[in-house]
C-alpha cells in the first residue's frame, strides 16, 4: 500500500486492544513483541487521553517474544504466558490476540489453547489480529465478530433489547459520551440497550448480547461485520444508520429504529417532542448571543467515515453553517468509496460540500489552500473565512491558515475527553457550545 503521513488510526491489533480495554472483565493476552501492547496503548490513548483502564497499558499480559521465539517458534512461551496470566490476572474472559510477527511465523495458537491446564475453566478464546491484516476499525469488528462466534451464548430473545455498534474506543474519541446519549434516547422509546463500552456496562452485557432483537450500527462501515456475524450466529437483524448529531438527525435515528422494531409511532413522537423542547430551550436562550455576533462560518470536516457526514450534516442542517469540504481519513477500497459517495447523496444540502478521500494532514491542508489562495495583490477578495474546522488536533495549521477555529472531533485528540459526546440531542447542544466557546477564545488576527 502507499505510504501515509501520520495515519489517524493504528493497526488491527491496535483497534482490538482499544476495544478490549473498554470491555468489562475482559483481559487481553497478546502473543507478540513487548512493544506491540505498549505502543498501541499509547496510540489509542491519543483519543482524548483514554488511558489504561482496567487492564490496558503496561498491564496488558503479553508473551513478549524475542529473537529466539521468532526463529524457533513461540508456542511454548505462549503456553507459559497463558498459564501464568490465569494465575495473576482477574478476568471473566481472556482473549489471546496475535500480532504481526506471530502471524508471519505462523504460530498455531489454537493447538496451544488446547494444551492449557485451565483448572478453573476460565473462558479463554483466540482472535487473529495480526497488525498488518487490517486497520484499527477492523480490529474493533474482529473483536465483536469473534465474541459472537466463540463466546456469546445463544439465549432466548428479549424483545426490548438492542445492541449498539459503530463507535471504536479511542479512534472515535467521544465514544463514551456518544454511546451514553444514544443509549439514553433509545431507552426513552422503551428499549434496553447494550453499549458494551461505557462505564455503566458489566460483563453481563456482553453475555446478553445474543438476546438482542436488533443490532444498530451507527456507522456506514464499522460494526457492520460484527452485525453480519451476529446475524449468522445468533439470528439478530441489524440496521445501519447515520451517526446522529443534533435534533433532526436524532429524530430520524429514533424513527428508523422504531420503524424496524414496530414501536408505536406515538411513543416516538412524544419522546422527540420532549427532547426537542429541551434542546431548543437551550438554542433559544443562546440566540441572543448568536444573533448579535454573526457566528456563522464556512466549514471543513476532517474525520473518519463514521462521523464525517454526520458533522457536515450538523453544520448544514442543524446550525446553518456552510460546510465546504468533507475529508474522509480512513483507508478505504474503491468499492467503499463509491458506497460513501452514494450515501452522501441522501443528505440535503443547499450546496453539497466537496467529498475528498485524503488522509495525509499536509495534503489536506494543501488541498484547501490551493483552492482558496489569498494573494496580497488584490485587497478585495473572496476568502474561506470565517472558518470552523471540525478535525483532529493535528489539523491546527489548516485552521490557522484561514484564521479559523479548530474543534477536535476526530483522532488524534490531544484534549482530555471524559463524558463529553456529540451524539443525540444533548450532544448536539454540546457541539454548539464547543464551537461557540472556541470561537469566543479565538485571537483575532485580521480585522475585517
Amino acid at each position, binding site marked *: *500500500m*502507499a*505510504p*501515509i*503521513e*501520520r*495515519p489517524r488510526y*493504528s*493497526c488491527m*491489533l*491496535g483497534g482490538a486492544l482499544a476495544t478490549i480495554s473498554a470491555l468489562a472483565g475482559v*483481559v487481553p493476552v497478546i502473543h507478540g*513483541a*513487548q*512493544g*506491540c*501492547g*505498549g*505502543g*498501541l*496503548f*499509547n*496510540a489509542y*490513548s*491519543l483519543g482524548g487521553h483514554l*488511558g*489504561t483502564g*482496567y*487492564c490496558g*497499558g*503496561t*498491564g*496488558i*499480559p*503479553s508473551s513478549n*517474544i*524475542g*529473537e529466539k*521465539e521468532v526463529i524457533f517458534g513461540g508456542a511454548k512461551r505462549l503456553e*507459559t*504466558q497463558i498459564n*501464568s*496470566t490465569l*494465575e*495473576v*490476572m*482477574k*478476568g471473566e474472559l481472556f482473549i489471546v490476540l496475535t500480532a*504481526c*510477527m506471530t502471524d*508471519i511465523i505462523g504460530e498455531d495458537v489454537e493447538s496451544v489453547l488446547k494444551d492449557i491446564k485451565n483448572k478453573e475453566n476460565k473462558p479463554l478464546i483466540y482472535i487473529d489480529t495480526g*497488525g*498488518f*491484516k487490517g486497520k*484499527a476499525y477492523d480490529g474493533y469488528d474482529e473483536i465483536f465478530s469473534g465474541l459472537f462466534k466463540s463466546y456469546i451464548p445463544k439465549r432466548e430473545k428479549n424483545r426490548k433489547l438492542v445492541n449498539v455498534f459503530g463507535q471504536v474506543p479511542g479512534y472515535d474519541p467521544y465514544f463514551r459520551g456518544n454511546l451514553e446519549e444514544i443509549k439514553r434516547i433509545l431507552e426513552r422509546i422503551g428499549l434496553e440497550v447494550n453499549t458494551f463500552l461505557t462505564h455503566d456496562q458489566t460483563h453481563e452485557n456482553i453475555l446478553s448480547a445474543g438476546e438482542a432483537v436488533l443490532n444498530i450500527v451507527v456507522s456506514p462501515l464499522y460494526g457492520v461485520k460484527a452485525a453480519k456475524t451476529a446475524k449468522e450466529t445468533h439470528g439478530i437483524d441489524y440496521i445501519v444508520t447515520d451517526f446522529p448529531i443534533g435534533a433532526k438527525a436524532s429524530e430520524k435515528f429514533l424513527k428508523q429504529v422504531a420503524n424496524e422494531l414496530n414501536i408505536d409511532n406515538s411513543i416516538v413522537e412524544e419522546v422527540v417532542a420532549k427532547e426537542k423542547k429541551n434542546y431548543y430551550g437551550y438554542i433559544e436562550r443562546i440566540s441572543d448571543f448568536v444573533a448579535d455576533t454573526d457566528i456563522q462560518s464556512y466549514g471543513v470536516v476532517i474525520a473518519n467515515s463514521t462521523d464525517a457526514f454526520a458533522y457536515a450534516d450538523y453544520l448544514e442542517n442543524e446550525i446553518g453553517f456552510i460546510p465546504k469540504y468533507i475529508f474522509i481519513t480512513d483507508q478505504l477500497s474503491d468499492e467503499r468509496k463509491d458506497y460513501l459517495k452514494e450515501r452522501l447523496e441522501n443528505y440535503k444540502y443547499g450546496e453539497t460540500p466537496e467529498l475528498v478521500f485524503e488522509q495525509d494532514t*499536509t495534503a489536506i491542508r494543501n488541498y484547501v489552500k490551493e483552492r482558496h489562495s489569498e494573494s496580497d495583490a488584490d485587497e478585495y477578495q473572496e476568502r474561506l473565512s470565517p472558518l470552523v474546522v471540525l478535525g483532529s*488536533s*493535528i489539523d491546527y495549521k489548516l485552521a490557522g491558515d484561514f484564521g479559523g477555529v479548530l474543534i477536535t472531533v476526530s483522532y*488524534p485528540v*490531544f484534549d482530555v475527553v471524559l463524558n463529553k459526546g456529540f451524539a443525540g440531542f444533548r450532544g448536539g447542544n454540546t457541539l454548539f457550545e464547543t464551537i461557540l466557546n472556541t470561537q469566543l477564545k479565538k485571537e483575532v488576527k485580521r480585522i475585517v
Partner: protein
Amino acid sequence: MSEVKENIIQVNKFLHDYVAKEPKSREYSRNTTNAYGGDLENMLAGACNGCLKKCNRDFTQAIYCQNAVSTLMSMSIRGSVVIMHGPIGCGSQNHGLEGRTKLASIHRGLEPEEAIWLSSNMNEDDVVLGGERNLKAAILKAQEEFDPSCIFVLNSCAPGVIGDDIEGIIEEMRSKVKATIIPLHCPGFMAKVFTSAYDVVYHGVLQNFKFTQDDGEFGLDKTLPDYEEKRAQLTEKKNKTVNLFVASSISAYDEKEIIRLLNKLGLHVQTFIEYRSPEELKNVTNAALNVCLCHVHDIYFVNYLKEQFGMPYITPSIPIGISATNKFITEIAEFFGLKKEAEELTKKETEKVLRAVEPIKERIEGKTALISGGYLRNGSTALLLNDIGVKVLGFRHFNYDEFGNELFKEVRETIGNVTNSVSTQASELVNLLQKIQPDLCLTHPGAGVWIAKTGTPTLTLFSENFSYFGYRGVFEVARRVDRTLKNRKYVENLKDNVELPFTNEWYEKNPYHYISDFRIDEEEKIS
C-alpha cells in the same frame, strides 16, 4: 587548559563496533538485564560479577520497544522526517510527540516544528512480497512533500522478520533524494532492553552525519581580512567550551540550570543532539570536552567522538541532588583547571539551597518513597530525596547494568541496602507496593496509574514542565513532594472506587515469583 583529567566509568563489558551495520542490543553489548528482584547489595554484587544477564519471566506484560524509543531522538532532530517502515500500527503512538516536541522547542526559544512522520504502511501483500516498494515510495514522499534536513528510516518487526534489506534500498535511494537518509535497525523483538534504542539512533547518526565543518575547524572564510583574529577567538572559545548531551526526558529548565552553573565558571556550553539540525551537529567537535547529562543515553556517541576525533569525555552521574550536582560541576571544572572556582561555587550554591529547603524539609522529614524508572535517574533522585529528608524504601529500575554500579555504591552507602528490582511489570509493581507501602512514588510516565490505583500519590520522575537538576531542582522537587503529600484525596478516592486486575493469590506471592532465570527464595520477605 591544565592537565587533562577524565573521569570515566570503568566497566567490564561495553561492546561497540562503529563500522558494523547495526549495533547489538544492550543485553549483548553491556549485559544489561531487565529482570531482577532482591536488594541493592545483591544486585550490585551480581552486576559486578556480570551475572545479571538473565532476562526471562514466565509472566510478562507489555512495555515499550526500541522502535518506539528510537522515535524520541530522531523526531527531535530539527527538520527531520521519520519513516516508520512496517505495518500501520508501528509508530501510531507518534502523534504524542507532536505536543511534546513543540513544547520542548518553545521552552528552548526555538521555532516549534510539526513532528512529521510517515508510515510505509505494509499490508498483508507487502508482508509476503517484501516492503521494498513501500519504503522507496515513503522516502520519495518524504523528500518531495517536506524537503527535510534528514530522513530517519526506522525498521520494525515485520520487515525485520521477513528480512527487508533496508540498507540496500536506502543506498539505492540516496542519489534520488537531497536529504541524508539514516537507517535505524530497531525491530522491537530484537531487544528486550529498550534503551538499546539510544545506541541504535547514535549508530545511525554517527555513520551518516558530519561532525566537523568542511575546513575541519570553524567553517570560517579564509579570505576574510580578520580571519586569523576570528580563528584565534574561536579557538580560545573552543578551549573553554563544554558539550552537554541532553535527552528528550531532560527539561529546558534543567538544561538552563546546568548551563547557568557552568557559565559561572566562565565556561561556554553547547547542547546536543536533541533539538539540533544536522548542520548544527557539525559544531560538535568545536568543544574541549563532552559531558553526558545521562550517560545511559549518550555514552555510545561520546565514546565514538573520542575514538574518531580524540575528544575527551567524562561520565559523572546525572546532576540530581546536591552531592551529584556538586560532583558534576567539580568534575567538569577539574578538567578545565577550575577546581578552586568550582569549590567556591558549589559551596555557595549548596548553602543557599539548603537554607531554602530547610522549612520544607521539616515538614516532609521521615516520609517514605519508592522510585521507579531509568536506573541512573533513580539513583540520583534517591540522593536528592535523602537531601530533603525523605527515606527511600526501594527502587524499581527498567533495566540495569554495571554502568550504574559507581552511583549505586554511593546510594547504598547513603541510604542503605534497600529493596531493589529490575522490572517493567505492572503486576510486580502493585504487588511490591502492597508490601512496602511508601508515602509517595516518583515514577517514569506509564507506571503512575498503577501506583495511583493502589492509593499512593505519584510524582513524575521527569517532565518537560518541571525542574529536577542542580540546586534549583532540589528546591523544586522538595516543593512538589511537600505539596503532593499535603493532600492525597485524589489517589485515596481512586483506590476506594476502582478495581485492580490482579488475583488475590498474586498478592500472596513474592513480587518476583515469575522471574524464571533468577529465583529468589520464595520465603524471603520483602522488607
